[in-house]
């Protein structure tokens, strides 16, 4: 009951935000939405299937670069096409990477994903005629459902139509992920996380399911990445660096990987926290490291775990 009430308040707050809260803070919510989508994917791997990827930034960056290339090189401005393009490219790349990575579990999986993330980073940097190298590729302002909203300047565009568009994509992604997690496939993933051997006995195709989860996670990551790059206006190699992957995991842990909505809460709190702390001290990395350490040691189930809601069957 309380959960539903709070959820309703949150939805109303998000819908009302652009008119109620200051413009800068509305722009802050945009990366939070984008990260939320990416993290829903990451949590399918970690919270549901038990695989911690330290290379998720690869797919986030891939989504950003796909959107950038489509707008800059191919002059395609429809955001729907950009998102679908990002999803497709990520899906394709995730196949060989996933096939290699899901042979391993736990630490090995984390290390391999980190290695692939850095491989992509080096590729982005090195093949500069294709990727723009350290300068990156610009992401031009997209059209939403065919509308250019030319009368609005970029900030008005971002906190107006784009805000609601991103929120809608997030809602759809959340619903979709909810269906996936509740499906027999999702149940199978949770069984794999609890006990892979038992799951295999029961007839779950362990490696194949992990592979599917990996590809789905990649697709969500890329859609998030494409949305992430629109406010910045640029896709650059740093999006693929391993510390960016580390931040993604940080966000997930902050929100609570045990809970279905953990990713959304984590992304939001992390963005707001980063904004506050970055303006307060130049040693914000230390503060963040300390916060992460505290969470890992004392509050591993994150903020939502703290609030001790009735556990969703994600766990």
């Amino acid at each position, binding site marked *: 009951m309380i959960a539903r009430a709070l959820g309703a308040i949150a939805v109303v707050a998000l819908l009302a935000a652009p008119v109620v809260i*200051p*413009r*800068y*803070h509305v*722009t*802050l919510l945009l*990366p939070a939405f984008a990260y939320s989508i990416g993290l829903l994917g990451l949590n399918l791997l970690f919270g549901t299937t038990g695989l911690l990827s330290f290379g998720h930034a690869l797919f986030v960056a891939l989504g950003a670069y796909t959107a950038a290339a489509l707008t800059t090189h191919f002059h395609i401005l429809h955001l729907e096409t950009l998102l679908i393009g990002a999803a497709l490219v990520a899906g394709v790349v995730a196949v060989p990477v996933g096939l290699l990575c899901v042979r391993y579990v736990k630490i090995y999986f984390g290390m391999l994903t980190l290695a692939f993330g850095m491989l992509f980073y080096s590729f982005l*940097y*090195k093949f*500069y005629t294709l990727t*723009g*190298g*350290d*300068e*990156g590729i*610009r992401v031009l302002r997209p059209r939403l459902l065919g509308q250019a909203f030319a009368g609005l*300047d*970029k*900030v008005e565009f971002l906190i107006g139509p784009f805000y609601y568009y991103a929120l809608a994509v997030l809602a759809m992604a959340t619903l979709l992920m909810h269906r996936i997690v509740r499906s027999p496939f999702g149940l199978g993933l949770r069984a794999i996380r609890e006990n892979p051997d038992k799951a295999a006995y029961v007839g779950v195709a362990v490696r194949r399911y992990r592979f599917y989860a990996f590809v789905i996670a990649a697709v969500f990551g890329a859609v998030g990445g494409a949305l*992430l*790059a629109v*406010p*910045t*206006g*640029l896709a*650059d*190699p*740093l*999006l693929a660096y391993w510390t960016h992957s580390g931040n993604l995991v940080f966000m997930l842990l902050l929100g609570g990987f045990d809970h279905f909505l953990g990713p959304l809460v984590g992304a939001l709190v992390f963005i707001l926290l980063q*904004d506050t702390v*970055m*303006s307060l001290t*130049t040693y914000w*990395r230390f503060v963040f490291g300390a916060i992460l350490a505290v969470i890992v040691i004392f509050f591993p189930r994150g903020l939502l775990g703290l609030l001790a809601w009735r556990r969703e069957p994600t766990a």
Partner: protein
Amino acid sequence: MKTTRRQFLALTGAASAARVLRLDAAPAFAQAGPVKLGVLAAKAGVLAPVGESGLRGVTWATERINAGGGILGRKIELVVEEESSPKDTVERFRKLVLQDKVDAVSGGISTGVGLALGPVAEEMKAIWLAWDATTQKGVDETMPKPKYAFRSTDNECEAVMASILTAKNWKGKFRTVAGINPDYSYGRDNWAAFLAIMKKYAIDVQVVSELWPKLGATDFTAHVATLQQAKPDLIFSCFWAGDTPIFMKQAHGAGLTGTTKFVLTTGGGVHESLKRAFTPEGALLGYNSMYFEHPRASALMKEFVRWHQEKFKEWPSYESDHGYFTIAAYKAAVERAAKAAGGKWPSQDAVIQALEGVEVESLSGPRRFREDHIMEATFFQGYTTHKNKHDFVTIDPVEAMGTKQIQKPSGVGLYDWINSWKV
């Protein structure tokens, strides 16, 4: 009580009368509060020392201006944020403009950040005065006619100057060249400019080695070994960070510094780390647009150097001048625009118009913004010497070239411009 109030009223009456009589509008604006200027300074990573240097120039300029009463009586208040990745820096820029409501933003060094901030400044209608980060791509492809973005000198200026000096002073004295440059846009652009200029001057060079270490690499033993085998007469490098002293040290350890000519286009940025112990004399060393020990340094420069040395126990590097200039130029533009507006505080459009073509006395001499929003300055390079009172190298004599000589004019491509030279 009554007497005091009358006295008080008399005083304020006198003050207003005095205000009306004064010819400058300074006190009237002071009531409007301080002028907020945003700063984006890199604080971590390989860019951090450069960011710090720029921030010091900005800070000193601000302190000086405020000590003199501020801009038309309004003190400058700096709001400093960190320049990091392009995504995060764009967010900080938005915060400065939307939340802190600054009048202008000064800063930006890395090429990725520069490429991202240009369109953002235009979209948000916020004046952006960059310290660095001007690449051909940024200028040509994405920002052909910026209104709000004011950029620094082209990234290749230092390579152009070094190449011209090399062609003039060392023609006939070298045949084989090797390049060791960081593997990113800056490294590639500078190396390409050098080769193009050698060709223009009809110097037949044979490239015996082209090395591309990662930006920020800390070990060059394998590179030095390769260079030893290749035996170049001249080594060209646009290293600008910690890699510069490491490379020189390891090159020295391998005996390369005795027999090879070195062209270090931007090494002057880390000049204090180029110790005499391993940096040879006679190397061409570039200090970009500010050389701290110029024999004909202005009083302003000497004052800055003294302040810098006392406060930080370090000698300043060129980014300080970029930083100083952005603040000084802004002040000059506001004053000029205010005068044109009859003494009223100018609108943003008026300030922008005044910034185009504004010229101020910066630390290393006069500097200005061209009408196309690109900076014009003087660059300083020279041949290293050990004859000084430091434990690091300096240059003697100091060559100076203005951007009119080494920076391409508006509307021309870099290589077209080079091809059009008469040599």
